[in-house]
């Protein structure tokens, strides 16, 4: 007890010296602090008291609007407040975390009714009961974990929980500023773009904007209230080629608030471009096997880096598993490769959550303090092509016992998974796009290839269904690593400069190693903002936890890639013509 008091006092002194903090008058924070501190006295006979208690609250207001083919499907505006309680029993060396239990027998209390109002009493009451049941479950879990460890010998003993400097940072919550009626009309109008393309069979737009705050209080003395907001407009559409092959494509615009989204005119252009690509798909021939250089043009460059590199900057830790529980995770390709070259030596990668804009464009992955109360700082992940560091949370992993403030993604019982925020991938030598295309043709000519491949869009994050994603994985798994998402805007570029769109191709064996074969980069870096999740293809349909992130990257020319036709039965076409076609 005495130790933490001292640390908290030092932390308080520390922050006072740096920046005068007003005494927190927030009833929610007060309730969180008072109940957390008291909870260190929880004790079941024969069990230890908790050594750490932490509360998270997310609150605010959300507006959600959905439209399709010019019609408003739904519109709502509601306040929200959600909370989680973390109780750790044991010690920093060995505690309840990093363990997958089959479940504890603790029956909870009925906890509907957590207040939206800033009501100290009501907030504290629900925290009291949640902590009580979390502590009882923690006692069970620790016993189960000890039993599971006795059953197997661990290959390496790592501490469970990294220490972190307590931090006090109270900032004002963000208020939702939005002209709801204007946005409803905007979303409705943009949803009408699909109406102009009869080949598109279905299309929906969803818009959401939320603003509020994230609160964190723990018994180490960390107290955080940080503004949190997000806005996004997501469009997806479905089209089918005459043989039944289906295209699903989507685009999402992300910004910290509605004002930061692109103008309606720009969004209209980008949606129309996606629709044109979809129409082109329906009229394109099927592609054939290809082995050679591929130009990832524009957003595709950022997409491929996001997908192939993004999650590999996070090292996973195998948890202890309870009897009857299975844990499986695909290996991390960059594990153990620190100090090795993973990109061309003229490329760097920096992850920086403190940046908020880049060349006047809004970034979506910015935050000051992560969800474990650790201040976020820039991390140089790759320097001159060499891997320098990984993204980390307070989970101790092999070789590292400190967080670098990357806990944004919840991973249920296993805490948080480290993730990228704003990832800047830069090249010290760049050429204009026209030169990249010329280089592509040059390589093809050397190898007697009639055409090279240009990819303009990948289905990442994927808007496919879970079923389709499973089929894709099954047909791609031979390559030794996970397949990447489907290229949905893919073109043959001929020596004379003309292009032909093709469809139905997938990459084989495109993984982190392939990035060493980046031949050249464009001078056209641009931000690609998206919903980052740890799931395969960042599949939206899987409803995994996600958060906005941005990758800033240029067009990339990559050599030695393989494309093969997508296999499998093709769905049938509708028997009745579309109303859009019938009415023409």
């Amino acid at each position, binding site marked *: 007890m005495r130790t933490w008091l001292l640390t908290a006092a030092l932390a308080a002194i520390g922050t006072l010296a740096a920046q005068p903090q007003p005494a927190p008058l927030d009833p929610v924070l007060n309730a969180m602090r008072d109940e957390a501190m008291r909870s260190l006295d929880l004790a079941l006979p024969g069990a230890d008291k908790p050594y750490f208690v932490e509360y998270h609250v997310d609150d605010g207001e959300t507006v959600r609007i959905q439209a399709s083919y010019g*019609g408003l499907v739904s519109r709502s505006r509601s306040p929200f407040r959600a909370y989680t309680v973390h109780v750790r029993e044991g010690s920093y060396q060995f505690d309840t975390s990093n363990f997958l239990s089959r479940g504890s027998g603790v029956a909870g209390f009925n906890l509907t009714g957590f207040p939206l109002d800033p009501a100290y009493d009501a907030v504290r009451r629900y925290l009291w009961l949640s902590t009580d049941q979390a502590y009882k479950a923690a006692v069970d879990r620790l016993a189960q974990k000890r039993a599971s460890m006795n059953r197997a010998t661990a290959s390496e003993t790592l501490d469970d929980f990294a220490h972190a400097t307590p931090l006090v940072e109270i900032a004002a919550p963000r208020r939702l500023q939005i002209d709801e009626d204007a946005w409803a009309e905007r979303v409705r109008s943009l949803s009408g773009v699909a109406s102009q393309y009869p080949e598109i069979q279905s299309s929906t737009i969803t818009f959401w904007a939320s603003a509020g705050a994230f609160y964190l209080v723990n018994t180490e003395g960390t107290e955080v209230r940080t503004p949190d907001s997000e806005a996004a407009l997501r469009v997806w559409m479905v089209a089918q080629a005459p043989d039944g092959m289906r295209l699903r494509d989507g685009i999402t615009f992300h910004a910290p608030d509605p004002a930061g989204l692109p103008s309606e005119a720009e969004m209209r252009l980008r949606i129309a471009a996606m629709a044109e690509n979809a129409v082109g798909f329906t009229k394109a021939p099927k592609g054939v096997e290809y082995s050679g250089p591929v130009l990832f043009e524009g957003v595709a460059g950022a997409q491929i880096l996001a997908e192939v590199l993004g999650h590999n900057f996070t090292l996973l830790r195998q948890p202890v598993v309870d009897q009857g529980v299975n844990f499986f995770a695909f290996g991390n390709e960059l594990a153990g490769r620190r100090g090795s070259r993973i990109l061309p030596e003229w490329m760097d990668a920096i992850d920086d959550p403190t940046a908020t804009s880049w060349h006047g464009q809004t970034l979506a992955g910015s935050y000051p303090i992560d969800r474990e109360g650790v201040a976020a700082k820039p991390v140089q992940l790759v320097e001159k092509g060499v891997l320098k560091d990984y993204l980390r949370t307070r989970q101790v992993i092999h070789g590292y016992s400190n967080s670098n403030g990357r806990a944004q993604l919840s991973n249920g019982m296993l805490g948080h998974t480290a993730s990228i925020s704003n990832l800047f991938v830069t090249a010290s030598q760049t050429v204009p796009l026209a030169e990249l295309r010329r280089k592509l043709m040059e390589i093809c000519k050397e190898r007697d290839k009639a055409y090279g491949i240009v990819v303009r869009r990948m289905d990442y994050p994927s808007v496919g269904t879970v079923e389709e994603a499973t089929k894709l994985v099954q047909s791609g798994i031979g390559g030794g690593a996970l397949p990447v998402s489907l290229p949905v805007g893919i073109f043959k570029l001929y020596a004379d400069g003309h292009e032909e769109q093709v469809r139905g191709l997938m990459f084989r064996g495109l993984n982190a190693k392939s990035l060493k074969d980046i031949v050249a980069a464009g001078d056209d870096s641009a931000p690609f903002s998206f919903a980052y999740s740890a799931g395969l293809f960042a599949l939206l349909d899987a409803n995994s936890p996600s958060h906005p992130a941005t990758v800033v990257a240029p067009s990339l020319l990559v050599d030695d890639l393989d494309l093969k036709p997508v296999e499998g039965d093709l769905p049938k076409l509708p028997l009745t013509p579309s109303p859009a076609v019938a009415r023409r």
Partner: protein
Amino acid sequence: MTLFPPPMRRLALFGAVAMVAAAQQPAVLDTMVRELNRNFSALQEKAKPAPYFIGYEVTDLEQRSITASFGALADNSGSHSRLLDVSVRVGSPKLDNYHVENGDRGSFTSGRGVAVDDTPRALEMRLWGETDRVYRAAVDRLIRLQSNQQVKVAAEDQSDDFSTETPVVHASSPVKFHCDQAGWTGRLRPLSARFAKYPEVLTSTVGVSCRAETHYLATTEGTRLVHGRGYARVVIQAHARAEDGSDLSIDRYFDSGDESGLPGDDAIARAIDRAAADLVALLHAPETEPYTGPAILGGQAAGVFFHEIFGHRVEGERQKDESEGQTFAKSLGKSVLPEFLSVVFDPTRHRFGETELNGWYDYDSEGVPAQKVGVVERGILKGFLLSRSPIREFPHSNGHGRREPGREVYSRQSNLIVEADRTVPDAQLRRMLIDEIKKRGKPYGLFFREVQGGFTNTQRTSLQAFRVMPILVDRVYADGRPDELVRGANIVGTPLASFAGIAAAGDKPEVFNGYCGAASGWLPVSAISPALLVSEIEVEKKPQSKDRPPLLPAPVFHEVAK
């Protein structure tokens, strides 16, 4: 019932209802009919097998839920949505893709969201996409059914899969949604704060929810229908945990068709105080012992009892489903209840005395007008609740085919009414209980004052049992001692045995308004019954919880709203 739009009222009164469909039906119905005909014609032309029936239902749902806890607002959310259900039938009415096989009757519809404004293109595209998807799923299932038919033993009940009914053309005005947000948030905060006075209450909420449902139906048989109603409910919930770890809950409800019918603050406050007092009494009550003997089911308890053990078993479609227990299938014309009892299901009835009923509606989900059904007459089983899926001896629907959007239609309960043609005053019922206790040498009998809905398992593969979960149960002593509240009792038993023992009925029927969850989703229902004296009720203890009450004392309430 207003007909839409007003100028047509005179014509409608003279019976020229067909005019409504032609000229001025709501825009959404217009779009539905156009797309219905377009898809049907195209499929007739190109599809093999072609469908013989297509039906569209769009449910317009507007709702809001406001809840407060201990003086603070806890929820204020609402939505306005339109949900689409598509029904496509291939084959023939004798055997189509909805044929029941081994408990499975196919699930095709999705209840997907469509535009809430009347934008034709938006609705057309969704109708088209869903019709195609549902048609393909229908053909898939029909093909599997046809090949199975050749292999399996024929079902006992060889009824058709789809009945013939008269198409309906009728348009009510869309239901108006009412919910005074500012008013309710202002009232619920101080009302919910009343629970703060009771330290035994761990958590509690007081809330209101309002809903307006308008249904639009169009079928290839010519049905063109707009109908609907509203629902409003005040909910009071409180929870506590006893020293032995038992979780205790009290839930109290007020139901109406509109927010204007909900109680004022005084009535809600009194209900809150009563709920808290009952919860505290339960906390201090001794635990029940296993018991078999005579009991009185209070009106509400009897209503729930009948809903669970009787109501589900007279849902028509269960009678021809081989995987079901089919308890009553062969009892038509036989005695299933004591001869002084009748059971009626009446979805045309809006009120019982002063109390509004949850289970009324004008048309069921297949567009069949709601009908009063006499299921038991003087103890004899006369009929079943029927949808358009016929059963042996009943070739037509009686307007009980119901579903929640996103589910397929199934025959379901409406307003269940237990009628006794001889009754005794409740005080006499109590004396009869005591006589019975003495006669059988039991130390006490039980009086079930209040129950929570139970659940029923009608499947053949599981025990033909039911459980009704009592909340307030008293021991009634033969020696003149005052009644004693006990807790932790569950009524168990097998249905046929329990029915035989209903000995007498009281003279003051009570209403239980609730929601019933089953095959076709959650539906509003009610159950009305007088108190019943039952000669044999079996009670078991609720399963014990190992959990302790909270380890730390409750944080003190600083502010208690006036």
